[in-house]
Structures are given as C-alpha cells and as structure tokens.
C-alpha cells in the first residue's frame, strides 16, 4: 500500500487525511514532491454502485402515503404486522 491513494477531491494520505488538489496546499505540494521522487499512488476506489431500478421504485413507494396506507390495510386483512407483510412481499420479489 502506497503512502497516498488517489481520490475525487485529490489524494488520501495513509493517515486518512483528505488532501485537496490545490497547488498552494503544503500537503499537496508534499504529495507532488513524493511523485516526482518516482513514487506512484494507489488508484482511486471505484464509484459507489448506483441504486437499481427496483431499489429506486421501492424508495418511491415508501414515500407514497397511499401505498403506506394500503400496506397497513393488507397487513390487517391477513393478520400480519406491517414488517411481516413487507418481508413476505420481499420474499416473493
């Protein structure tokens, strides 16, 4: 593991400090000096995986008051708690 790892904001030092890509920041100047000396930083972490369509649809439904009321009615109809009903629906998906 190298002393630095590339990041969106600039670089991340091994102690966890986030160093912006600013040529007047003394830590970034130190990083550039380290690179000039022949060192190579670790590559940046991959971007987070975007939410799937199903996850986005679920989030939208969770915010819908009609949907939440429907879940409550269905749960009462089947003699389940809301959590039990949601777990049952997730198992079917």
């Amino acid at each position, binding site marked *: 593991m190298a002393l630095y790892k590339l990041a969106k904001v600039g670089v991340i030092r091994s102690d966890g400090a986030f160093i*912006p890509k600013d040529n*007047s920041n003394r830590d970034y100047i130190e990083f550039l000096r380290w690179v000039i000396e022949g060192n190579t930083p670790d590559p940046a972490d991959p971007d987070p995986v975007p939410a799937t369509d199903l996850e986005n649809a679920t989030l939208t439904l969770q915010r819908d008051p009609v949907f939440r009321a429907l879940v409550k009615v269905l749960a009462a109809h089947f003699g389940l708690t809301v959590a039990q009903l949601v777990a049952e629906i997730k198992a079917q998906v």
Partner: protein
Amino acid sequence: MSKVGSWSTTAGNNNSTPPDGWPEGQAPSTVNDCAREMMAQIKTMVNSLEYVDLNNTPSFLTATTFSMATADATNFEVGRRVKLFDANTMYGTIISVSATQVQVRLDYHTAQSALTAQLSSIAMAVVKATNSSIPDNVWKRKNAIINGSMDIWQRSASFQPANNATTYLADRWQINLSMGGAIAVSRSERSANASNVPTLAQSGVFFNHSLLISVSAVDAAIAAGEFATLGYIVEGFDWRQIAHKPTNLSFWVNTRESGIYAISMRNNGSDRSFVQDYTISAIATWTKVSIPIPEATTAGTWDYSSGVGLRIIFTLAAGATYQGGAGNWTAANLLCTASQANLLRSAGNTFAITGVQLEEGQFATPLEIRPYAQEKQLCQRYYQRLEATERVFGHATSTTRGIYGWDLPVEMRVAPTVAFTAVTGLVNTDGNGTERSVSAATTLNITSKNIIFDIAPVGTPFTAGQGAMFFGSTGAANIITFDAEL
C-alpha cells in the same frame, strides 16, 4: 498681551503697545510688564496643549456653522478637531470649509446641542487631519505576527516533536529538528506559576502564556548539518505590508542556557536570508529582546500573496553549514553565526518565548493587544477544527449515505487538508432525529470556504431525501481538522 496665536512670525511685527507687544523705544518700566504678560500667555497655552487658539474670531451663523473675518484654509481643514467656546465649552469636527465659512459636527454635550450667538472663540487641535507627526506604525495593525503571545493552541497543549520533521505547535508556530537530541514543547501558563511569563510590572502586559521548549535528550556536539529551530511564517499578503522596509522583531525570552542566540529571516525561495545575534546573560530570567532589521533586498524570490512571505526563525542550535555573518541580507540560507549557543547541550535546558512582535520601523513599540476572538479568527485562516459542540447539516441520498455541507467559520488560506481524527466519535441522525453510529466518512469537495462531507451510517437506517445531521459525540474532541498552514 494678546494670545500666542496672534503673535507674528515676523519679529518686528510684534510691536503692539505694552504689554501686548515690544515696540521700539518702549518705556523701561513696561519691559517687566511685557515679560510677565508673555509668561502668562505661554502658560495659558501650555495648560491646554491639545488645542491651540490661533486667534481666529468666529461669528455665529447657524447651529453648526460660523464665519471668520479672514480665510484660513491652512488651519481649517476637513477632519480637524476643534474646541468651541460658546455658552459651554464644546468640541467638534470640521466637516466642510468654504471661503470664510466653516461647518462643524458637534460632539454630544449634556447642556448644549447647537452653536449660539455666544460663540466667542475657537481653538484648533494640535494634530491635523493630515498630520505628519505621528509615527506610521500607530495607524496600522502593526504586529505582523499572529498569536505572538502564545494564547491559541488549537492542536494540543503539549508536543513531542519528531526528528527530521516539521511539527506545528501553538497556532502559527512550528519547530524543525534535524539532530541527535530530543525536545518537548508545551504551553506554559501563568496560572500554574507566575514566573512562566514576564510580569506585568516588567512588560506592561498581563501575559497568560508562553511557549516552552524543554530538552529531554542531549546533543552536546552539533554536527555541521544539524539544526533545531522554532519558526513562524508570515503569509505573503501580510509580509507585503512591511516588505522591504526597516522592521523590528521584539520578544520576551527566558532560557536556562545563557549565551549568544540568533534569529534569522528567510524569503520564499530561501535564496536571501538575514541573521542577527542576541545575548542572554542571565539564566531563568525573562529578558526583552529587540532586534532592528534593515530593509530586505527585493532581489531573490519573494511571495506577496498566499504563499510563504517571510520565514522567521529562532535558532536553538545549528551546525557550521548554516552559520554565517550577521547584520545584512545575504544571498544564502543561514540560521545563525558561529557564536550560536547550543540549547541541547544539557538535559533539562529550557527556552521559553512570548510577546513576539514584528513591526515596521527600527524600534520596538509596545506589544499590540488584539481581542482574543480576533486573534483566534486570524489563526483559523490557517488551521481550524470541527468540535463536538458543532452540528453539520445535510440530507440522506440513500439508505446508507448522507451528504452534508459545512461552511468554514473563517475562510482559509487555501483549500485545507481534511482529517478525521475519530470517525467512531461521529454520530449521524436520521430524519426522525434518531442517532446512528458512523461506519465511514469521506469528503466530496474541499474549498477554502466550504467542505462537502459524505458520511455513511452503520446499517441502512436512512430514507433518501430526508434531512440528516452529524456531530461529534460527547467527549470526542477534535473530531475533524482543517489544515491550511504554510
């Protein structure tokens, strides 16, 4: 005799009838009358030296204006203070002058709010609005040093500086070691021992703190390339205000190793430096040091913006590589002369310093005292931290992620380095205000004014779109640091 202000600068014109003047062939019996009257008039003037009656006779016009028989544009100038003899003695400031008419803005007076026909005479303040008699440094923020009295210690109150490294100490102060010994640095407080700072009687300042360097491991023989220095860097913007003029560096110092020490100054490119010795004769005694610095040459590499303007170095020990002549700016990178003492000669040696001031002019003037809040804000341009008492607001973007914006209370010199010193000390709250532990923290954007944080809670407690907040848990100090030091 008439008022001093009516006397003529032409000797022969002071010939009014005795005792108002000294006419040619005056009776011998009037000589003593003239002398006594002259003494009386001089004494009258001395009794109120702040104002001089130039024998201008004002005629009341309005509540704020008067006229004069003769135009006197030389003495009646906008901005000059005046003393007005009306029903009461009043004070004011001239706000306009046209020919023989003058308008004033009167100071508040409990018994009189306007000029009246009783206005009989007027005296002028000794100092003109366009004065040229008061030293330049009175008119500006004279001390280029921030935290010269060692009152702000945002990072910590004690340090064990590493060798071959720069360690930041009290705000704006740093120590550089490249040698065999070891030292410790701490905040030395008056509350612990009055002798930790200069006394009020000797310094005229009620100091609270000094910066104390203590030798914990000896380096009795300093090799050519070794050094130990206490340093301060003046930012280019601040350096420009006094750059290439005669300056003075003054400070209070107390050491257990007597001898000759040096201060040095260096430019941005380290291709011009200045060295001057000072002698500490008495150990364990607070001594005031004042060092005049000749104007620096403009040759070499200097910075007048947000970079290194001027490095000020208090040399504690240095080998032959960094030794040279004193008293002049030279094209070299020097720290001291060959006379430099070695603070690290004995274990237990100490070097304490406070009240540091760098100002324009060859002479040290009294230490500039700034409000604590202002001093801390000046420090925060270079270093600040988010503490447990502060709250950062944002919103959840998913069940596992919150984005938060933090406006830095003081714009920093440049975009700072952001360090999370204790991620486990952070607490997230979801849209319902329920506190959640933090699993990871990162930054999405860093500028000199604002930081965007990306904080992940443990688990999946968030609802996208809902508000969120994070803060440090009780007792977790120094949660996030922002460092834009030079």
